[in-house]
């Protein structure tokens, strides 16, 4: 009862802050701690937000934290916000903390993500007819390996991210066996090895990701991922199964400590209203991971050039 009341109040205060513009600054002397997870895109997202908070007059501290394990810390108020949570890859613990009311969601990041079944460009020569998904029916054997013979091999997400690739293969009745990758590093190593060896590879992947351009990764065209596809078996090319379509669009959102809006009202407003587009994030990621520049330098450069994209949000909250 008490928790749901607290949740209601903080959600309300965020809504009020979001709508009403200028808010109290709150405890400006205490640093706001933002989580830095394991991937570069998230570092960019977080540091842009951090710079915005600094521009508003706050102190910001970046804390490295494992994506999966950060929610306990946010619930305890040891970390105050995490800014890039992928709906496709969020632990059960997040739902538990939201239910407890110790972690609150603070809006979408606006990053337009796409997930799908993908392949490095050279694979189109091995399996002519790609990117149309029907082509995969006939060239499965090209993708076969010792563990999957006679089926083709699909490298799926690590098991703890769910099994979307396997679901697709089942739904579309494609003769592929999904093999869980184990980790993101393993996915990248597969892409890299396939590109180096010019060997066949079918993989579950997503964008924005620096590897998309580094290894020229293309998505397979699947029937559009409408809601009906996941509930109604008769929908789509396979009349007997659900999941016979592309991934439903992933939502990428932000979450914070439940006390965020009370302690730093204006900061909560900035973080709630903050969005970042793929077109902005992807080049910054490339500058870091491909060209080897430092994240803070890249972010500082972007901030200077794109004031129009972030300044209004800071101004609205502070003036």
């Amino acid at each position, binding site marked *: 009862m008490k928790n749901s009341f607290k949740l209601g109040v903080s959600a309300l205060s965020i809504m009020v802050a979001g709508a009403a513009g200028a808010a109290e600054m709150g405890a400006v002397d205490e640093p706001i701690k933002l989580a*830095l*997870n*394991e*991937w*570069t895109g998230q570092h960019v997202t977080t540091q842009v937000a951090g710079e915005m908070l600094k521009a508003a007059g706050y102190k910001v501290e970046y*804390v*490295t*934290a*494992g994506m*999966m*394990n*950060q*929610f*306990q*810390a946010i619930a*305890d108020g*040891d*970390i105050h916000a995490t800014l890039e949570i992928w709906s496709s890859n969020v*632990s*059960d*613990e997040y739902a*538990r903390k939201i239910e407890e009311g110790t972690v609150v969601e603070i809006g979408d990041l606006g990053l337009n993500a796409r997930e799908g079944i993908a392949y490095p460009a050279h694979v189109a020569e091995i399996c002519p007819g790609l990117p149309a998904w029907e082509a995969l029916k006939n060239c499965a054997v090209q993708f*076969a*390996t*010792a*563990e999957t*013979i*006679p089926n083709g091999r699909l*490298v799926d997400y*690590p*098991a*703890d991210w769910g099994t979307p690739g396997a679901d697709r293969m089942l739904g579309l009745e494609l003769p592929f066996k999904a*093999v*869980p*990758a*184990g*980790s*993101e*590093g*393993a996915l*990248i*190593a*597969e892409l*890299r*090895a396939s590109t*180096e*060896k*010019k*060997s066949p590879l079918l993989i579950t992947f997503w964008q924005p990701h620096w590897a998309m351009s580094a290894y020229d990764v293309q998505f397979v065209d699947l029937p559009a991922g409408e809601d009906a596809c996941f509930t109604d078996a008769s929908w789509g090319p396979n009349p007997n199964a659900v999941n016979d379509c592309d991934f439903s669009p992933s939502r990428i959102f932000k979450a914070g400590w439940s006390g965020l809006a009370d302690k730093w009202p204006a900061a909560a407003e900035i973080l709630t209203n903050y969005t970042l587009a793929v077109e902005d994030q992807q080049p910054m990621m490339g500058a870091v*991971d491909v060209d080897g520049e430092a994240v803070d330098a890249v972010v500082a450069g972007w901030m200077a050039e794109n004031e129009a994209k972030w300044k209004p949000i800071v101004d609205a909250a502070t003036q």
Partner: protein
Amino acid sequence: MSLTKGAWAALITVLVGALCLFLEPHVDWLGKWPAGWTLPVNDWISQGLGAALGILKPVARFFAWLLAFPMDGLTWLLSQSPWPLTIASVTALGWRLGGWKMALLGAVGFGFVLISGYWLQSMRTLALVFVSVPLALLMGLAIGILAYEVPRVKSGVNVVLDVMQTVPTFAYLTPLLFLFGFGPVVGLVASAIYAAPPMARNTLLGLERVEHDIREAAIMSGGTRRQQLFLVEIPAAANQIMIGVNQSLMAALSMVIIAAVIGGFDDIGWEVLLTMRKAWFGQAFLAGLVIVVFAIVIDRMSATLATQRKAFDLRISGAIVGIGAILSFIVNPDSTSYAMMGGVAASVDTAVGTFTANNGAALDSFKNGAMFYGLLPLRIGLDQAVLPFTWGFMWQPQYSLWLFGVAIALGAVLAIKGRVAQGIVLIIAVGILETGIADLPWPFVLIGVGALGWMGGGWKLARLITILLGTILLAGLWERALLSLYLSGASVFACAVVGGLLGLWAALSKTAWAIIRPMCDVLQTIPLFVFLIPVLMFFQIGEFSAFLAICMYAVVPMIRYTRHGLISTPPDMVEAAVSSGATRWQMLREVRAPYAAPSILLGLNQTILYAFAMLVIAALIGTTGLGQSIYLALGQADIGMGISAGAAMAILAFIADRLVQGFAEDRRKALGL
């Protein structure tokens, strides 16, 4: 005809196996343990532990708050002091401990850390190690003294120490996170838990070995029990205890990367994880080498504490620190400006890529060969692994009959020659190969392992082992446990053969040892994650890659112990053999090898434990056994699943350990040691 113990055990096992094989088509529950027979152990653990953790939480948080002080202080000190001063201090310490050799080691080692470009991250790692180690040492010392003073609890303490060392850390990170809150304190506690057992074991061993005369002298001079212990016995055991300190330090360092998975501390482990995620092998390897360098410096310097040594002139140490302090004002204080390994790392990375590109086909056929003719039959049996795609023909049921027929005929020949046990074991081995480890009927495994226990340690061990295996069945983890068993079994077998041969070679040739030894050092201390990338690049996700990764790590103890056993034959035995005219080969086979057997078995025991430890990490390249469960549980913050899978893993390791130790004990008795 009277049968030996081994023959009886084998006979029972083969009868149960034959019965299972015969009944399996008719009785469903023989092949697979029915889901309805499992207990909701995960939920029980989640609920029970959840409640217990809730009660402990305030105490743990207070403890975390206390620990944060030394942690923050040391981090501040190490990251704020100018790098020339730090390097000079390490060099000075090296001089004091072991003269110019140690001084040089310190200077070169920390110099490498500087040019690696990871100075700040490394200093944070060092702070973590230096706070967790005293904690581990105190814990270990207390446990060791307790076991010594109260003999009743000794066997209980031993089990606790086994558990601390065999339950994979990943399995208890989630509860620790809940208890202690986010941040480096979790990593600190986790590494202290892992690092305490060697200290406890060495303390106990040292105290037990204190000579009788010394103890009596203490009693006669009228000291209280506490005075006897702290003023006489512990100082007398100091050398053994120092070995414990050394081992604890190494264990704590090997945990650094595991702690980084949680984050909260921008240390070298986190750096390894970030580069791993991008599959940058060169850079990950460089960051990993920093940990190796720390391990070597700490190992060699603390090892000097365990030997009788003379103290080196303190004034020279002072002078070195002085020079460092002066340099601090002259040189550029920004440590990152000295990074010069980036180019090397990048070219190592490119080299791995080029190698993959050039040898893709060869690597693939190597992998396929190993999979088709080795790993797959072992896992799912010849009856399923032999397909037109793999072996070029289809396995027919009558092939199985022929295979068994040949095995039984060969077994009978052996039995007639008087080797009854060997004959039956041959039949069992063929049966396992035909069925596949992952498809073995559970009664067969239970009885077979129980029979092994009976041979190695009598009824008591057999009963214990069977009950423990039974709990895995009841917890519903049997299939995953068999997968883990298959993967680690295949790896241990390969390690035993390759490691044994390398150990033999290293024992025969000094040059060989000079090449192998540094490789062993690196393999043992570098974060294991690092090797996953080249393995993945060469052989892709899957069991073969996991198999190789496990082998790389687990082969080390086999090499070390085999060599050690072979070269430490007592000189009088060697002399006796030489004077009776033995050739070099005869000497090896008839004198050294039997004498080395207990040591080699101990190496095998360590190899098994290492292989299990590596299983969890192999889950990162997509294996599907217990390791994956533990990793999944960590991601989902599922305490019940993590603990039960971790416990199942510890049970398997424990059983393997007790079996091998039982056989080693037999050998030792036979040799009269």
